[in-house]
């Protein structure tokens, strides 16, 4: 009778299946009970026919037959047999572990590949989740930030203090809101020693929102911000230890913060560094009581009211709209107030986090592609490992083991391998995160205190799930292939499973990609090194310059309201003048250049538009690197304008905004035209009806803007008033022996201003901007990829060759006995592998040569195609040598050891 089709039948089958799987024991006992009932009924029936009780029961059991067999049939009828066979035991797991040890080379190669592939696969989601994680001490994720999102520029636009006051008054979705702003403070203790420290001014409710209890004393209270209240400060744990020797009686002590004497009222516990890596907290006082004005930029953080979700808060914020401002501008109308996780505010990511970014999706796809390649290769290795047990499988199949049982076993073995690899990979990453300063890669001293990239339980679960997916891909497919062959071999004499075209393609592909990757990696390292070492790359004799950062702790005055700001700017200007004078007076110093970013440093990118040119049709903003420079910057670097004129003191003080642009910018924006006299603007939502247009008065050479490609480093140079740049990046042209100046700098700086803080001076040629880390990171990643691919290809070939030796032992023995030379015997085995390796190397060679040619010596370095091919061929040769050595050595020795006796044994 055919099975009923349709939804009703399907639903019944699924329900039955689920019940059978979920309540396996109940179903088993019901079957047993039903069988016993049947036998009892039959026995009674037989008794009525005259049999004795015992005989009737015995007869009933005989008639019923073998219960286990019926039970098995019953389970099959319920569709549970497949699942029974798919169940695995600890024995399978033990076998899996044993297989790891039995084939160490294959296991290591596979673990190596997956230990990289699996963490790479989970990394994007892990980082995305970490960025949106709640602040430490806020497990319910009730703390959120309010920000203005500028959809045109796709970044966060500053919120003003008056907006904070408006939201604090109007929003009901938050139980409390706080404004804060960060700054650098000069803190002096009793001994008069001053040191800069990163600190935060935070408004009345700040600590009640954060709810982190202090280690000593108390946190800031709302009354601390009142007019006339005593000046107080809270210290961070690290600062308390390093600056005050972890003094247990610190509470109540007076310290000088800037020009104000404050009483320490508390110390925060280790690890608390709100909002990022700050170590000092002061009350943020309002316009009425002190430090900030309504226009002051602040950031806003708040705690959601009970029972209010972030979505509800966003709805209320959207309904309220932008606050009415004292000085409204047209541009602000496009801003979108948003309620976001604190991490998104801080990192300036769009609402929705990384998931909403196309770049993130691309990275995610790329990472998964790497994992897929790793899985494909592991499948090859699992195939190789499984092939060695071909005879065992044939026998087991002949003895009645089902195909699904054997496939399950191979799957479990691969799962064991994948889980070991995932564990190793994740732990290795965790170790790296703990011991490597990741912040340095983004030019920061430390990661924000709330950003934890360490391995979480979720990450481990994701890793295990990914391991299961890999095991399914890499274990089940080869197992099905081999068991199919084993099933046929059990009924007729069929040769052992062989490596097919797919395996060959994988080996060839691995080697081709390895050759191309090694070419790219070497070329990138070469280019980065070349650029760094070549003093002329930026048109500046970088090795003759010392670069140092000078910062005057502003104690929050840079953005303060009223005369304090002007006074600080004047002090900074004086310091700057005196510093330049003191440096210039040093023997051997021929120039001093000051800017907010020096050549080879990372520059601030800003959106811009050109007067008369249409905005891009899709509304996307174009960005350009901008550098604020002191007058004399170019001369200080020993360079001059290419055309037009240099910036002058009149430009700084005059009302007509002017800029200089570099040659890459001029060529990109005004191809074939004269850029002088054209005007550009950097529109912000705070502009009035029209943007502020800056006239281009000069064109300067490329000054080391882009590390990767000097032709693409477009930049605009804006004049800055003295006293407007803090921290100052100073390049000192100290001639051929700049090191001699290093020792004198601290005393020189102290003589200018004792509170002026100097960073460690380095040679300008030694500066490494973000590009450099990116290039070296990619090159390092490629080197790891090459290592993985070489190991994978070599392991696959090794397995293939070992199998070939064992299959052809008899043939080799006979040929050996007949006097065949050793070389021809070895070639019997190695021929195919040699073809695969050569093919892979040949396929990768053009790519490697291309990379070497494009990057190897820069655009004008004179790299010839022929030289590039020689380089690439050399690299390809190294890859081939590495693969061959690993994979050929043992099989070759096996071949050479085969004699007639081995051949005879093989026959048996």
């Amino acid at each position: 009778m055919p099975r009923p089709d349709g939804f009703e039948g399907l639903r019944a089958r699924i329900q039955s299946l689920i019940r059978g799987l979920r309540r396996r024991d109940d179903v088993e006992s019901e079957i047993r009970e039903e069988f016993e009932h049947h036998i009892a009924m039959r026995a009674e029936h037989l008794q009525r026919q005259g049999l004795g009780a015992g005989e009737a029961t015995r007869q009933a059991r005989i008639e019923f037959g073998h219960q286990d067999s019926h039970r098995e049939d019953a389970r099959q009828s319920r569709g549970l047999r497949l699942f029974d066979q798919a169940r695995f035991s600890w024995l399978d797991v033990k076998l899996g572990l044993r297989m790891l040890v039995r084939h160490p080379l294959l296991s290591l190669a596979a673990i190596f590949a997956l230990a990289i592939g699996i963490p790479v696969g989970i990394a994007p989601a892990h980082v995305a989740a970490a960025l949106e994680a709640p602040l430490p001490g806020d497990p319910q994720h009730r703390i959120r930030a309010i920000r203005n999102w500028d959809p045109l520029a796709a970044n966060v636009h500053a919120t003003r203090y008056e907006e904070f006051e408006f939201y604090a008054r109007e929003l009901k979705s938050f139980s409390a809101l706080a404004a804060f702003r960060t700054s650098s403070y000069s803190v002096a203790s009793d001994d008069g020693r001053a040191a800069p420290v990163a600190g935060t001014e935070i408004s009345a409710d700040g600590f009640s929102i954060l709810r982190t209890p202090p280690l000593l004393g108390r946190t800031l209270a709302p009354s601390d911000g009142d007019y006339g209240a005593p000046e107080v400060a809270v210290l961070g744990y690290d600062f308390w230890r390093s600056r005050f020797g972890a003094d247990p009686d610190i509470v109540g002590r007076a310290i000088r913060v800037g020009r104000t004497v404050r009483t320490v009222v508390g110390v925060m516990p280790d690890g608390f560094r709100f909002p990022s890596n700050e170590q000092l907290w002061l009350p943020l006082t309002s316009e009425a009581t002190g430090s900030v004005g309504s226009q002051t930029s602040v950031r806003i953080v708040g705690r959601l009211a009970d029972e209010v979700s972030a979505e509800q808060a966003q709805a209320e914020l959207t309904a309220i709209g932008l606050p009415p401002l004292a000085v409204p501008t047209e541009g602000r109308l496009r801003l979108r107030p948003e309620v976001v996780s604190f991490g998104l505010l801080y990192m300036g990511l769009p609402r929705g986090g990384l998931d909403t970014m196309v770049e993130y999706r691309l990275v995610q796809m790329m990472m998964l592609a790497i994992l897929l390649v790793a899985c494909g290769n592991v499948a090859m290795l699992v195939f190789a490992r499984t092939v060695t047990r071909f005879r065992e499988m044939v026998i087991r199949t002949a003895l009645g083991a089902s195909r699904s049982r054997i496939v399950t076993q191979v799957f479990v073995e691969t799962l064991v391998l994948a889980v070991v690899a995932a564990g190793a990979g994740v732990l290795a990453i965790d170790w790296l995160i703990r011991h490597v300063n990741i912040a340095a890669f983004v030019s920061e001293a430390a990661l924000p205190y709330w950003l934890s990239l360490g391995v979480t339980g979720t990450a481990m679960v994701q890793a295990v799930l990914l391991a299961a997916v890999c095991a399914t891909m890499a274990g089940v497919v080869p197992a099905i292939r081999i068991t199919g062959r084993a099933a046929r071999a059990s009924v007729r004499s069929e040769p052992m499973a062989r490596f097919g075209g797919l395996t060959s393609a994988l080996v060839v592909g691995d080697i081709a990609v390895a050759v191309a990757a090694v070419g790219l990696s070497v070329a990138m390292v070469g280019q980065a090194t070349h650029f760094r070492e070549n003093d002329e790359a930026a048109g500046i004799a970088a090795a003759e310059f010392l670069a140092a950062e000078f910062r005057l702790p502003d104690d929050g005055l840079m953005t303060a309201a009223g005369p304090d700001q002007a006074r600080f700017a004047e002090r900074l200007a004086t310091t700057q003048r005196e510093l330049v004078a003191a440096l210039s007076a040093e023997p051997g110093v021929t120039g001093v250049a000051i800017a907010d970013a020096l050549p080879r440093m990372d520059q601030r990118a800003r959106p811009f538009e050109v007067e008369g040119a249409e905005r891009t049709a899709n509304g996307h903003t174009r960005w350009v690197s901008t550098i604020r420079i002191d007058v004399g910057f170019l001369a200080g670097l020993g360079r001059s304008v290419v055309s037009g004129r240099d910036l002058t003191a009149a430009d700084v003080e005059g009302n007509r905004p002017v800029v200089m642009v570099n040659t890459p910018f001029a060529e990109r924006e005004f191809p074939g035209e004269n850029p002088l006299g054209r005007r550009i603007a950097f529109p912000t939502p705070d502009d009035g009806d029209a943007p502020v247009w800056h006239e281009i008065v000069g064109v300067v050479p490329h000054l080391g803007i882009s590390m990767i490609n000097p032709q693409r480093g477009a930049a605009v140079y804006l004049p800055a008033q003295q006293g407007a740049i803090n921290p100052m990046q100073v390049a000192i042209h100290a001639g051929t022996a700049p090191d001699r100046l290093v020792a004198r700098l601290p005393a020189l700086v102290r003589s200018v201003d004792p509170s002026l803080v100097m960073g460690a001076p380095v040679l300008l040629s030694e500066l490494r901007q973000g590009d450099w880390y990116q290039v070296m990171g990619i090159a390092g990643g490629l080197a790891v990829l090459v290592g993985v691919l070489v190991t994978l290809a070599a392991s696959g070939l090794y397995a293939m060759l070992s199998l070939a030796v064992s299959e052809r032992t008899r043939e080799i023995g006979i040929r050996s006995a007949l006097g065949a030379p050793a070389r021809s015997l070895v070639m019997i085995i190695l021929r195919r592998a040699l073809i695969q390796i050569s093919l892979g190397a040949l396929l990768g060679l053009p790519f490697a040569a291309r990379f070497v040619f494009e990057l190897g010596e820069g655009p004008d370095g004179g790299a010839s195609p022929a030289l590039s091919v020689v380089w690439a061929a050399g690299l390809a040769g190294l890859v081939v040598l590495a693969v061959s050595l690993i994979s050929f050595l043992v099989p070759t020795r096996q071949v050479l050891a085969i004699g007639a006796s081995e051949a005879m044994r093989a026959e048996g």
Partner: protein
Amino acid sequence: MSRQADLPPGTLDLMILKAVSLGHVHGYGVLLRIEAISGGAILVQQGALYPALYRLEHQGLLSSEWGTSENNRRAKYYQLTPLGRRQFGEHKASWRRLTDAVALSLAATPQEV
């Protein structure tokens, strides 16, 4: 030829559905009922009965519930589901068409060819 008939493949399910359609019944009862309604001509292998019952239940043609049997033991009683009733009706009609056709064929004489 023996008085007992061998069941053609696929017929056991139909016989079980018929037995259950006559009223809810436990597994052993199905066996007895088939024997009774076939006049003792059909004897179902005891071991074959339960896989068939479970298959029909798995397919949603039978439902079951536990009750107490005539010997005061807990027993599993089967009954037709609406889907089972429909399927049984369809297969009964199909079976009749088949048996009529087979009977007609077997009764054919040379003159009818």
